[in-house]
C-alpha cells in the first residue's frame, strides 16, 4: 500500500499537525519508503499467533481505595497542575472559545 498527498493530508489532520503543501509533498515519499519497507511483515506466517501487547507477564494491580494514598498523585495540587499551563485562568486551563 502507498499513500498519496491527499492521504497524508488526512493523516496529518487526524494527528492534528498542520502541514502546508510543501511539507505534505516532502512527507509523501518518506512515508512511502517506510511503508514499503514494513510491508515485508506480510510474508510472515502468523497463523495461530496472538498479538503481543505486553512483553512481561504482569497483572494490573488495584491500589487501595484510599484518598490521596500517594500524595504525589493524589488531589489538592491545583497550583502544581496549572503551573506549566500556557493560559491558566481562574484555576482552570484556558482554551479558545469553543461554543458560539
Amino acid at each position, binding site marked *: *500500500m502507498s*499513500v498519496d498527498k491527499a*492521504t*497524508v493530508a488526512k*493523516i*496529518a*489532520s*487526524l*494527528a*492534528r*499537525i*498542520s*502541514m502546508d503543501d510543501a511539507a505534505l509533498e516532502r*512527507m509523501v515519499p*518518506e*512515508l512511502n*519508503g*517506510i*511503508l514499503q*519497507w*514494513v510491508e*515485508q*511483515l*506480510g510474508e*510472515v506466517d*502468523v497463523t495461530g*499467533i*496472538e*498479538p*503481543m*501487547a*505486553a*512483553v*512481561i507477564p*504482569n497483572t*494490573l*494491580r488495584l*491500589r487501595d481505595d484510599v484518598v490521596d494514598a*500517594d500524595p*504525589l*498523585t493524589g488531589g489538592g*495540587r491545583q497550583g*502544581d*497542575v496549572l*503551573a*506549566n*499551563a*500556557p*493560559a491558566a485562568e481562574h484555576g482552570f*486551563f484556558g*482554551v*479558545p*472559545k*469553543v461554543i458560539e
Partner: protein
Amino acid sequence: MTDLTQLGVKDIRDGVRAGDFTAREVAEGFNAAVADAAALNAFIVTTPDHALAAADTVDAARAAGADLGAMAGVPIGMKDLFATDGVQTTAASHILEGFTPRYESTVSQKLWDAGAGMLGKLNLDQFAMGSSNETSYFGNVTSPWKKAGSNAAMSPGGSSGGSSTAVAARIAPAATGTDTGGSIRQPAAFTGICGIKPTYGRCSRWGVVAFASSLDQAGPMARSVEDCAIMLGAMAGFDPKDATSLQMDVPDWEAALSSDLRGKKVGIPREYRMEGTDQAILDSWEQGKAWLKDAGAEIVDVSLPHTKYALPAYYIVAPAEASSNLARYDGVRYGLRDLPDGSGLQDMYAATRAAGFGDEVKRRILIGTYVLSAGFYDAYYTQAQKVRALVARDFERAFAECDVILAPTTPTASFPLGENVDDPLAMYLNDVFAVPASLAGLPAMSVPAMLNEHGLPLGLQLVGRPFDEQGVLNAGLAIQQRAGFKAAPEKWW
C-alpha cells in the same frame, strides 16, 4: 592529587566513603569539566548547584558517621527525558521548552536518595526518536571521538547521545539513559562505554517522558560493568505509580558480579550475520566468542529466525504507541501554545503541534496514526504485534539452549554527523541488532570491545533471559576483563 574526573562510579563512591577526597571536590571537578565542554553540546541545561548541594549533604552525612548511599558523592548526568522537580525538562523538543516539572521522576528520585547529584540535563534525540542525536531542537550532540585522520564531527549515537558523549568525554562519571529500541546500547557502543537496558519493568517509567510505553525502559550508562551494576541497583525497584513496574526484589548485582562463566552456555544467533555489517564488527564478534570461551563458557549456535522482521515490526509498534502518547501535547496543559489570530481550538492544536514537533517526530506520529487508522489497523498494527510475539518466542526457544546471547551491538561504528540524515531508513538500520531484545523486553547490555581500523570504538552486546541482569552483567564483566578497553578520546573541546 589524582584528577577526580577520571574516576568512575565505584571509585568515587569508595573514595568518598574512605575519606580520600570529599564529595564536594568531586562535584567541583565535574562541574568545571562540564563548563569547559560546551562544544560537545551534551547538556541542554547544567545544574552545578544541584551537584554541589547533593555533595554537601553526603559530606555532612559522612562527618556525622551516617551510612552513605550506593551512589553517595557521585554526580551524574540526567537524560532530559526524566522529569526533574524545578529543572526544565524538554525531551529535546520545542513543544516542551520551558516546561518545569513540579515533581520528580521515580528513577531520578531514587538516584538522589542514593546520594547522587545532578550535573545537568543531557541532550538527546527529540522525544528519544533517533539514532544519531541529530533530531534535538537544541542542536546536535558531538561525539568526543574523531575518526583517525579526520576532523569531521562524529555521531555519539542516539537517542541517549548526550549521555554517551558526557560519559565518554569524562565530563560525567555516569549518566541515565533510556532504551526503546537501542537508545542506551547503540550510543554506548559508538562511544566506547557500557550501558545496560534492564528487563522491561525493572525501572519505573513514572515521570519519564513517554515514547513507546510497551518498550521504554531506563538504564545506566557508565565506563565499567561494575559502575553499571551499582547504578542500576540504585535506579531499579517496584513503583506502584507505574502499572507495568515489576513487583520483585532488586538483587545486589554488584555483590554477585562474577566473570567465571564455567558451566554457562553462550548462544551465537546465526541470523545476526547480516549483509551490510562491517568486517571489523564481525571480527570483534569472533573475538568476543574467544573471550567468553576463555572465561569458561561453552559457545553454542542458536537460531532467532524472525530477526529480520524485528526492525520493521518495531517501526510499526513504536510509532503507533508514540502517536498515542504524544497526543497529550495539545497546547492546553503544559508546553508550547501557538494560537494564530482568530483561530479556534482545533486550529490551535494543529498549529501548536506543527510548531512544536521536529520532522522525525512528525514522521513517526504520521506513520503511527496511519497504521492505527480504520482499515489499516489489522494489516499493519495487529500483524506487527503478532510478529513481535514471534520475535519473543524465538528468544524463549533460544534460551532453552543457552544462558546468554552474544551479538554485535551495531552493524557499523559511529558515522559523521549529517551522513544519514536524508535517509530515515538507513538511520533506522543502526538499531537492527538492538531492537529484537527491546521487542522481547529482555535485559541487554553493550560493552566496549576494541577500536576499529579508524580508531573508533566497537561494542559487543549481551542479551539475557527475563530478570537475569546478573547473567548479562557477568558475561559483560568477562569481556571487559579480557578486552582491557582503556582507550579514551583525545580532548579537543
